[in-house]
């Protein structure tokens, strides 16, 4: 953004602007991470020294460990289920008529614009009505529905770029439809499928509202965090937050790396 023709003052201003935006974006995260290492049981300055005591405390807290395990299970299962559903739905749409395609794409977009809170309440009422009850499984089902549009759109976009005439080449060389899918279609759209899966996992690991209304006693990590906040703030919350942050950002990073690999 700084070209040789720019005056020096403009360059400085531009840099300051970028720094300001980044600071605004990341300051809350920095605060959370920083105080997770605070040796004193306070979340305010002055900063008195580094310590891993909160991590030690959190990782020996059975409630936290259970919540982490549930969140991990939810993330993995949400990822797998949305990948399978998103891939099969996208593939089914390939041969469909334009109108069916357009309608389905709109239908897939609706949940993205619908307030999650209302959706979560609706889901809770539905579970109650059918006597399904509230549990981790109920939450995972909700996460699948929340994440599916993203996965569906990412894989669909990838399939739009896929040259289906390649499959004719595979058939011509003697491949069955299944073999052609495995050897040609899947390898070529795999980066998008993996990227979408990881994104779904990150969405699930981070999700609060649906979990709040459907998890019941099987609290996921964000729910536990919320409960602890109500009991009062201390740096152990920051330690939980930092663990969650590392998990989701690394997932998001892997997702971005996989998706961009396909575009190369």
């Amino acid at each position: 953004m700084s070209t040789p023709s720019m005056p020096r003052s403009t360059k400085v201003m531009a840099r300051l602007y970028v720094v300001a935006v980044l600071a605004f974006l990341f300051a809350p995260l920095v605060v959370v991470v920083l105080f997770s290492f605070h040796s004193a049981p306070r979340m305010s300055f002055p900063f008195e020294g580094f310590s891993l005591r909160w991590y030690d405390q959190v990782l020996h807290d059975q409630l936290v460990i259970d919540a982490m395990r549930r969140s991990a299970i939810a993330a993995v299962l949400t990822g797998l289920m949305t990948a399978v559903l998103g891939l099969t739905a996208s593939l089914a749409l390939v041969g469909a008529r334009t109108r069916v395609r357009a309608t389905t794409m709109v239908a897939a977009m609706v949940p993205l614009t619908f307030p999650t809170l209302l959706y979560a309440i609706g889901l809770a009422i539905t579970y109650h009505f059918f006597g399904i009850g509230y549990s981790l499984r109920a939450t995972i089902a909700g996460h699948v529905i929340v994440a599916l549009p993203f996965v569906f759109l990412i894989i669909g976009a990838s399939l739009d770029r896929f040259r289906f005439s390649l499959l004719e080449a595979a058939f011509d060389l003697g491949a069955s439809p299944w073999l052609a899918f495995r050897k040609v279609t899947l390898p070529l759209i795999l980066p998008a499928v993996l990227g979408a899966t990881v994104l779904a996992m990150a969405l699930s690991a981070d999700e609060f509202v649906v979990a709040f209304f459907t998890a019941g006693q099987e609290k996921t990590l964000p729910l536990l965090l919320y409960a602890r906040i109500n009991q009062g703030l201390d740096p152990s919350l920051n330690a939980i937050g930092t663990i969650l942050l590392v998990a989701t950002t690394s997932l998001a990073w892997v997702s971005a790396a996989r998706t961009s690999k396909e575009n190369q």
Partner: protein
Amino acid sequence: MKEPQRVNEPAMSADVPALELVGLSKNYGAAEAVRGIDLEVRAGEFFSLLGPSGCGKTTTLRMMAGFEVPTTGTIRMHGRDVTSMPASARPTNLVFQKYELFPHMTVFDNVAFGLRVKRVAKSDIAKRVGEMLEVTGVAELERRKAEQLSGGQQQRVALARALVNQPEVLLLDEPLSALDAKLRTRMQIELKEIQTRLGTTFVYVTHDQGEALMMSDRIGIMNAGLLEQVATPHEIYERPATPFVADFIGAMNSLKLVAGAIEEGVVVDRRGSGRVVVPAGVQPGQAVTAILRPERASLSGVTDGTHDSYLDGTVLHVVYGGATSNVMVSTEFGDITVSMVSAEQSRVVVAGEQVRVGWAADALRTVEAPVSSEAS
């Protein structure tokens, strides 16, 4: 035409055509893409399906490959009915117009794909792929990714990928159309050499008449879903069976003649100062449409030629085209284009000049139906 025996599988009888189409047609709704084709392609033959875009040649090829189901008709390969056989089971392989190499695979893996599907032993695969890459001249690219290749290289890999499966019939869908002119010419020669060497039956779809004339043992010319003529390149060029073939295969003049008196043993049509010898077999009084190739006509006093037929006219315009130039002359029989080798012209012709167009009587050929009046 006498065909040398180049069948690669000795068990096959030479009498059974490698490919046989019987009453083949294909409709898309009300549109008839292919309207009943009968064709036999001999084993080891280089056969071209030539025609303008939309004539049904690609549809016909795709029916041979198994990508389109014929509405009616039968396809046989070496006597075996393959009409309802899926593409994957047919003894054919197709070289696609856009190559359709698998971009995520190396050249080797692309070429090995068909053999791996058929579970050929690993050592055999390595040997056969290596040999075929050698034949098509891309052995050194074995480890490259398909997406890193130039158009010409992709073309060669696509050819190797198809040929390595030793298809009974190799189908090629305008495989050279994406290459530049120079590379195309080189590939035409190479393709023909490879075909002669391997003795594989080639069915080659193209809209380029030059390409078809140069490479083919026989050509089938298609128009509006029908085969207009199936013959050797020489025959197609010299004796086009229909006005369409005559027009498509090259620039052509058409003359509407009325057979008049018999002079010196030949029937002539005299008009103004012109005298045209009517092709043999036409009775006095009959009207007939005849065609005349521009390069068979000449201008008196400008280029040499035997003229037992001649017409006087006015030069409309001269198109200089490097090695040859075309002169369009307005005559009593309509506009006639004369094509002359530039180097053989004794003088420059200009528009408005009075000239005499002449040709030898055997240059004129009759075709079944009236030729479209365009004498381009």
